[in-house]
C-alpha cells in the first residue's frame, strides 16, 4: 500500500523480513508458514524469498517444535515460532512455561532463550470456543516471559522487531480480526523499534482514563471520539507490553482525571487487566479517584459460535460507551 496504511499481517511480515535480513540466525518455524504462507497469510512470500532452511514447515507438533525453538535458541539462534491459534499454546505449555521462561533464572544466568512465540488470538471470526481465546493472562503470570499485545499495525512492526532483538522469550499475541485491516495510522518505513515495556497514550481528555488492550484500544478510541462530541474528555492508554508493565503513564493520568476504566476482551475473572486495577488501587493515584474503578471485560464463558452470541460475549463499542457515561455522570 503506497500510503503505508498496512494491515497487521503486512506489518508483521515486514518486521520478520527486516529481522531475517539483519540477522542470519533469525528463522521462522510453524505449521503451514512456508509454502502455504501461513494460515492467516502473515508469512506469504517469505518462503520464496528465504528458502526452506529459514522458513520451516513443522509437523503438527506444538510441544515438539516450541521445544525445538527453545533448543535452537540455547544453541545460538533466534527462532520465531508461530503457533497457528493462540489456543494451541496449551499444547506447548511445558516448553513455554516450564522451560523457556525458567531457563535463564533456574540456571543462574548461564543460558538464555532468545525466542519469539507469535500467535493470533481473539474472537469475532466464528471460529468458536477452541479457536478464539484471549490467552495473554496465561503468560503474564509466568515470570520469565515477556508478553506483548500490539493494538495496531504500526505498533506491531516496531514491537516485533524489539521482541526479536530481546534475549528473552517473548509471547507476541496478534488479534486475528486486525490481520486484514489497516490501523488508524501509517506504518513507518524502515527498521525503527518500539521498546518493550513502554505504554502509549493514544487519545487525551480530562474526565476519564481508559486503559485498554488489544482490539479494545481501537474500540475505546471510537468511544473517545463519540464522548468528545458529547463534551466528555477521555484519555486512552495502550500498555502495548503487558509484561513487563509500564504503569507510570496510567498513574499520572488517573491523578489528573480522577476516573479509571479498564477494558479487555478476555473473560473478566482473573484476566490481565486486573493487574492494572490492582496497581492503581495501591498507588499514589488512589487518593485522586473520584469514582470506583470500572472494568469492562468479556463474559466468563467460552466463546460461543453463533454471531450474535459471539458478539455478546465480548465488550462492544456500545458497552464501553455506556460504562464510560455511567462512571462520568454518576460520579461527579
Amino acid at each position, binding site marked *: 500500500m503506497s500510503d503505508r496504511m498496512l494491515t497487521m499481517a503486512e506489518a508483521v511480515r515486514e518486521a520478520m523480513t527486516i529481522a531475517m535480513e539483519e540477522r542470519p540466525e533469525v528463522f521462522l518455524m510453524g505449521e503451514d508458514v512456508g509454502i502455504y504462507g501461513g494460515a492467516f497469510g502473515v508469512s506469504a512470500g517469505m518462503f520464496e524469498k528465504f528458502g526452506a532452511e529459514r522458513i520451516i514447515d513443522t509437523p503438527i507438533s506444538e510441544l515438539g517444535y516450541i521445544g525445538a525453538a527453545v533448543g535452537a535458541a540455547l544453541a545460538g539462534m533466534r527462532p520465531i515460532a508461530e503457533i497457528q491459534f493462540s489456543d494451541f499454546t496449551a499444547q506447548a505449555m511445558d516448553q513455554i512455561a516450564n522451560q523457556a521462561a525458567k531457563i535463564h533464572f533456574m540456571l543462574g544466568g548461564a543460558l538464555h532463550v532468545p525466542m519469539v512465540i507469535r500467535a493470533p488470538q481473539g474472537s469475532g471470526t466464528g471460529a468458536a470456543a477452541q479457536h478464539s481465546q484471549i490467552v495473554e493472562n496465561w503468560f503474564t503470570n509466568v515470570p520469565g516471559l515477556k508478553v506483548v499485545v500490539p493494538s495496531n499495525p504500526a505498533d506491531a512492526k516496531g514491537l516485533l522487531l524489539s521482541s526479536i532483538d530481546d534475549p528473552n522469550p517473548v509471547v507476541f499475541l496478534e488479534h486475528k480480526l486486525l490481520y486484514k485491516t489497516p490501523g488508524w495510522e501509517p506504518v513507518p518505513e524502515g527498521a525503527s523499534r518500539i521498546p518493550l515495556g513502554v505504554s502509549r497514550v493514544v487519545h487525551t481528555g480530562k474526565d476519564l482514563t481508559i486503559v485498554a488492550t488489544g482490539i479494545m484500544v481501537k474500540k475505546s478510541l471510537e468511544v473517545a471520539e463519540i464522548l468528545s462530541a458529547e463534551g466528555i474528555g477521555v484519555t486512552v492508554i495502550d500498555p502495548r507490553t503487558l509484561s513487563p508493565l509500564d504503569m507510570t503513564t496510567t498513574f499520572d493520568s488517573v491523578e489528573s482525571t*480522577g476516573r479509571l476504566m479498564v477494558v479487555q476482551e478476555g473473560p473478566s475473572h482473573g484476566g490481565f487487566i486486573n493487574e492494572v486495577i490492582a496497581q492503581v488501587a495501591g498507588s499514589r493515584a*488512589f*487518593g*485522586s*479517584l*473520584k*469514582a*470506583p474503578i470500572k472494568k469492562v471485560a468479556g463474559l466468563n464463558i467460552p466463546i460461543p459460535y453463533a454471531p450474535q452470541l459471539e458478539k455478546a460475549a465480548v465488550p462492544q463499542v456500545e458497552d464501553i460507551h455506556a460504562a464510560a457515561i455511567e462512571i462520568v455522570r*454518576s*460520579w*461527579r
Partner: protein
Amino acid sequence: MSFKHTVVMPKMSMTMETGELIGFHVAEGQEVKAGDVLFEVMTDKIDMEVEAPADGKIEKIVAAPGAVLEIGKPVLIMETETQVLSFDFDAPESEVTPETAEITPVVSNPDPVAVTPVTQVVAPTFIVNENPKSVPAARKLATDKGINLQTIRPTGPFETITYEDVLNSNVDPAIAQRRQANKALIAKGIEMTLAVPQVSFTRAINKSAGSEAKWHAILVTKWAKTLRTFGQDDIGVALIIESKYGSALPVFKNPDQIDLATLTELVRTTTEQAKSGKVPLAMLNGATTTIFDLTSYAMASNRPSLFPNQATGLTVGIDSVGALSISLTIDLRALDFYDGAVLLERMVNEL
C-alpha cells in the same frame, strides 16, 4: 411482644409418615437461638436434627423421648421473639395470652422535680451518617477544607459522597459551631420544661389554600385570637423556623391585631431571614407560646414541647394517611384539662 410457636414432628422425606423422637438437646426454660438443635428424629431413611426456627425460649416439652409421632404432631412449645409462620389447623387452646401494651396516661411525673443543671452537651454537629462512604478524592478535599464527612449529604451511588458533594458543601465549620450552640440552648430549655406537669391533646384539622407563609400567618393569628379569648392580653407567638444554623424562634407580637396580608408578608420575610441565620432583634423575645409546623417533615403532630415560661405549645403535623392534625400541650399549673380541651376546640373552630 412475644409469640408462641409449636414445633411439630416435621415431614422430612417423601415417604415419611411417622418419626421417632431420639432425644432432646434442650430443656424447658432454656433460651435458644435460631438454628440451635432442638431434638433429633429417626425416620425410615435418615436421622435428622430439628432446629429452632427463631430466637426464643423453650416453654414446654410435650412429647417424650422415644415417642413415635405422626408428622405434624406437637413436640414442644416455645416463645419466640419474632413471629414464626406456621399453619396449624388443629392447634390446641392457647394457654398464654399475648402481651398487651399498657395504656399509660400522657402525664409526666406530677411531683415538681428539681431541674438538673445542664451539663456539657457533647453533641456533635448535625450528622447525616456516622460511617459515610466517600470517594478518595472527596476524602482528600474534605481533609483539606476541614470538613467532617459525616455532615455531608451524599448524592453518589450507594450513598457515597462524591467529590462534588464536598466541593459544593457549605458546611462551614463556623456554621456548624453556631448550630451546635443553638442546639445546646434549645436542649437546655426543654430540659427545664420537662419537669413541668403537662398534658397534650390532638385534633384533626384541614389546611387552607395558599402559600406556606400565609398558612403560618393564619396559624399564628388564629392561635393568638384563641388565646385572647382566654384572657391573655400580651401575646407573643413564636414560630419555629429550621435552618442550617439551627432552630430560630422569631416572636410575632399580638399578631391577631395585624391584618392578615401584612402579617403574611411579615411571616414570609422573617422566615427568609431566619433561614439565613438572622432574626430581627425586636422579634427575639416576648414569646408566651410556640408553634411548630411539622408537616414539611411529614411528621404527626404528637406532643408539642413547652418552652420555658410558656404555658402552651402547638404543633401541626401530618399523620400516616395524610390527614392534618394539630396538637396542644398545656402547663397544668396554669391550665387544667378542661381549659386545654376548650382551647384546642376553639382553635380548631377558628381554622
